[in-house]
């Protein structure tokens, strides 16, 4: 079943168009990756889906309902949750406060239940729950950002470059966690420049190039595609 459907999306900043009509679909339980170089429009696309940017034209449909103009905070409550680029944890707040905010609109009892589940998934966060989020390492902050998104019990998690700026070991940790989420049946949309990491997690992918979809298909096909291989896997054909 399709949960998320983007059609002919055109969006940008000020007068500069960054997306020139992008379409994609995400099915329930599916992990989809959007890869592409800097400036390909990946973040713009994700922000439009999350509602932080209002697209110029095109539509975003969520469980069949048009949400193109719905406010970001409402989409988050609907279960469409974004883990933003650069993690954006609330640095001055504790780990526990950050998680609480992730489940802001939920009943305290439900929130506490999900929080202990998140702590089980990320034992490191439990150890550090009274620590200010800003004092943790990049990898730990990324875990917190993912855990915070899970606090909303989302039906789709959008992740914007979770491996960005992390040490190789932390990238592996993040990838392992994302694979675990996929195994548990979460629906993910993963934006990555690091195609290696993205292909480990995703079932299907889209290659964005200067604001349009250049190639799309199952991960195995993308891996073999010459355009992907030269540009993103560092191989010469």
């Amino acid at each position, binding site marked *: 079943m399709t949960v998320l459907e983007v059609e002919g999306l055109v969006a940008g900043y000020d007068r500069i168009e960054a997306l020139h009509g992008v379409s994609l679909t995400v099915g329930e339980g599916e992990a989809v990756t959007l890869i592409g170089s800097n400036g390909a429009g990946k973040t713009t696309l994700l922000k439009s889906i999350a509602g932080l940017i209002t697209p110029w034209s095109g539509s975003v449909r969520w469980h069949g309902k048009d949400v193109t103009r719905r406010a970001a905070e409402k989409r988050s409550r609907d279960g469409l949750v974004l883990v*933003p680029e650069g993690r954006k944890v*609330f640095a001055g707040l504790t780990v526990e406060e950050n998680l609480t905010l992730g489940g802001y609109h939920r009943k305290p009892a439900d929130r506490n239940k999900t929080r202990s589940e998140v702590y089980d998934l990320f034992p490191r966060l439990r150890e550090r729950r009274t620590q200010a989020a800003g004092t943790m390492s990049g990898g730990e902050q990324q875990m917190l950002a993912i855990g*915070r998104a899970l606090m909303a019990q989302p039906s789709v998690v959008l992740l914007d470059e979770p491996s960005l700026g992390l040490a190789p070991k932390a990238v592996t940790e993040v990838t392992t966690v994302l694979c675990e989420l996929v195994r548990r049946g979460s629906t993910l949309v993963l934006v990555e420049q690091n195609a290696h990491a993205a292909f480990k997690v995703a079932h299907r992918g889209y290659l964005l190039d200067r604001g349009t979809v250049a190639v799309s298909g199952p991960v195995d096909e993308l891996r073999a595609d010459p355009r992907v291989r030269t540009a993103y896997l560092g191989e010469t054909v």
Partner: protein
Amino acid sequence: MEQLVNIVFVGLATGTTYALVGLGIALVFQVTGVINFAQGDFVMLGGILFALLAGKFADPAGSQLGLFPAALLALAITTLIGILVYLLVIAPARKAGHDRLIILTIGASITIQGLATLAFGTDPYVAPRFSGQSLEERSVDILGVPVDTQYLWCAAITGVAVVAMWQFLTRTTLGTGMRATAMDPETSRLMGISPQRMALLAFGLAAGLGALGGTVLAPLNQPDTTVGIALGLKGFAAAVLGGLDSPAGAIAGGLAFGLVETFVIGYAGTEYKDTIGFGLLLAVLLFRPTGLLRRASVVKV
């Protein structure tokens, strides 16, 4: 010596009112990025409404029991007006820049003052003291110096309000959401927190804090509809002294401003108090724009 002790007490006590106003200004600034110059008018409204309602609720037997509902109602009405200011003035223009919104708050201030003058007239209102109506009961001895009990009420009630505010901001989910909005509005939206609702709440709380300040101050300085301007500026000074971005700083700034003002009145004369008080504000804005307590922030690129 006696005069010095008295000045310190009176200064700190008047400072608590400025602290409440400053706290409201800092709160609104952090959540919305707007300096609310109508904050002083919330103090004025609180004071006048309290004085008016206290007369209505006055106990014929002469007890002070009527003051509590009067204060509560004054607080509630002013809070509602604060929310209305947000809904009618700020919310429709929220896409405009912060500078324009600040001008709008000045307009709101003038409008509130005009409407208040229509409703309440131009005369100052006399509010009953919280305790000790007879002359000999009006002061207590502290360190051998007689101190007006109303100042003690000011300090005590402000103290309770500040602690309650602190608990709200740090212990409740709503308060944590408010701090999150102040830190990063965009990411807060991703948590499902509506910045508009938080702004509305900030305006309501700020108006309530201002009204509380107006209520405790009314028996000492009889409020008329024009007192809002000076009080708003003093609250702004308090918030700026504290760096605008910290509630604790605004409180410290308010106390400092009250002390300076009272010292000037005591040693130089009443006519100099505004010159020196606002001179201090000017000096801080020129030389320490990040506040007295804070080092200039280093911008990382």
